[in-house]
């Protein structure tokens, strides 16, 4: 293998290794503490990009997401609470912006539906098991039936030549 070959391979591998770094949000904000930074990251993960149908702020490259990340960062730096930041965006962009929907009549089905379905499924299973126990196999034969069965068995044994 020539030197050129080795060099080219090394360059290709380096390019491949660096390629993933080109994706995702790359803006950097300075925070006073690691907690603030964690809060910022949690918020941009659970807030939704209003321009996209299914991407959070941290995963979106759209300009509006960059603006909203900046807004969130500025509010975190100013010491605003998580709920205050959510409420600020909620007042402007509506419920769409929240990936974790609020509990209200319109979202009851969303919040409580799964639990209700699970309960329903449990009820059905319990009833099925109960029913299976109730009619577990046929009732034992009466004496008369036993006698009839013996007769039939005898006749079958003789007849089957």
């Amino acid at each position: 293998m020539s030197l050129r070959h080795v060099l080219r391979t090394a360059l290709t591998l380096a390019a491949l290794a660096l390629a993933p770094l080109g994706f995702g949000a790359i803006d950097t904000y300075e925070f006073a503490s690691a907690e603030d930074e964690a809060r910022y990251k949690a918020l941009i993960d659970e807030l939704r990009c209003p321009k996209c149908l299914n991407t959070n702020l941290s995963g979106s490259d759209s300009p509006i997401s960059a603006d909203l990340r900046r807004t969130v960062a500025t509010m975190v730096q100013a010491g605003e609470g998580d709920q205050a930041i959510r409420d600020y965006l909620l007042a402007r962009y509506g419920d769409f912006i929240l990936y974790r929907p609020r509990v209200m009549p319109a979202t009851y089905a969303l919040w409580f539906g799964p639990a209700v379905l699970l309960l329903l499924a449990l009820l059905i299973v319990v009833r099925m098991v109960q029913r299976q126990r109730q009619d577990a196999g046929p009732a034992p034969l009466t004496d008369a039936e036993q006698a009839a069965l013996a007769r039939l068995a005898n006749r079958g044994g003789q007849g089957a030549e």
Partner: protein
Amino acid sequence: MSRTSLFLPLGLFLVMAFMLWRGFALNDPHELPSALLNQPLPAFEKTRLADGAPVTRDALLGEPFLLNVWATWCPTCKAEHAELNRIAATYGVPLVGVNYKDNGPAARAWLARYGDPYRLSLVDDDGSLGIELGVYGAPETFVVDAEGVIRYKRVGAVDRRVWEEEIRPLLTRLGLPLETPKA
């Protein structure tokens, strides 16, 4: 298996049909209901695109007006522009522009070239007024009443249908005297 459970598939079908019907009835999932409807127009301090003079929220109030978010980088804004020119010229509608995340000289050149239907345009180069207004894509158009309350929001272009069916009746209801077009 009891007789009633025979109806289970039918029930499932009806539930699915209802959900699909609701799902597909959302004709445009991009259209979000505006959280700002019937809320006061947020306060701001911006400058005028034409000459950089300061403009505040209260300076705009007094009569109902249209607030239109536009930018030179936005193709739909260009498509919409002819209709804005038409309604401004024909009906004398007070139009205020928000030049959203744009470049000043380019925006002025754009208005010089395609016509300027706006009484004035506000410079929102950093998009901060856009965030206050819950803007997520230009063009967006708001109807603001004389007291400064947002009464209507349109995401996407204002075309003749939207003007005739939605905005014009609303402006009339809000008591804005519109010039009658010459036949």
